[in-house]
């Protein structure tokens, strides 16, 4: 798997969440993702960027375009230095929330991508990586 391009952007304010959505949309259009796939990826990015902001007290998003043989895809990393997630399995369940949301952020965005991984350490922060292949 090769990384063709990479860009990092901050997630410090709710306008950054809007910028993150727009950036993911641009990259997905460049890779000629279908409209439904674009919409799924942008929606997942919106959920995860908001999580990093609301629960992780801000962080960053890294976007990478990937090539794996004949396949192309987009990978997104969301990193924060927030309180971390003590019980990841519970956090992935629909309806679980510590904030004011619906509790669909993590579990829901997992369903919108092809690959999803999460590393978190209590007191240190959280790093979530998602990939959607074309």
């Amino acid at each position, binding site marked *: 798997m090769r990384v063709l391009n990479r860009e990092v952007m901050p997630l410090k304010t709710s306008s950054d969440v809007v910028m993150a*959505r727009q950036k993911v949309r641009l990259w997905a259009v460049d890779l000629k993702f279908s409209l439904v796939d674009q*919409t799924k990826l942008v*929606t997942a990015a919106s959920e995860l960027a908001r999580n990093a902001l609301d629960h992780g007290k801000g962080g960053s998003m890294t976007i990478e375009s990937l090539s794996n043989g004949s396949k192309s895809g987009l990978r997104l990393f969301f990193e924060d230095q927030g309180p971390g997630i003590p019980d990841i399995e519970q956090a992935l369940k629909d309806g679980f929330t510590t904030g004011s949301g619906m509790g669909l952020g993590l579990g829901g965005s997992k369903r919108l991508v092809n690959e999803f991984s999460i590393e978190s350490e209590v007191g240190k922060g959280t790093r979530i990586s998602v990939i959607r292949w074309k």
Partner: protein
Amino acid sequence: MDRIPVLRMGSLLLITIQVDMHDKLALQLQDDVTERISEWGATGVLIDISSLEIVDSFIGRMLANIAAMSRVLGADTVVVGMQPAVAITLVELGMSLPGVRTALSVEAGMELLYGAATRADDAST
């Protein structure tokens, strides 16, 4: 501050969301709609989301909140014009917007709201 305009047409409120909303703008809209309903005595709220390229759980929750708050204040809400890709994504995300009435077009939404108003008039006479 940025605001999404809330227009008045007879007893209805019309809202067309044409920008990629940040979260504060969505919350502001929620407040504005409830205030306008009570100020103008509106009986219906039509929200056109045909320009929205995504609806995530936050915006979904805002739509559900507006519908619930309007109902408590005596007004019906219809959300119209959702793009098919947005509908597919929203359901996969786990949100099917229970409690929010939807219609394909502004015309169909208007019919729903006027129909509801007429039925209410019939019942009261």
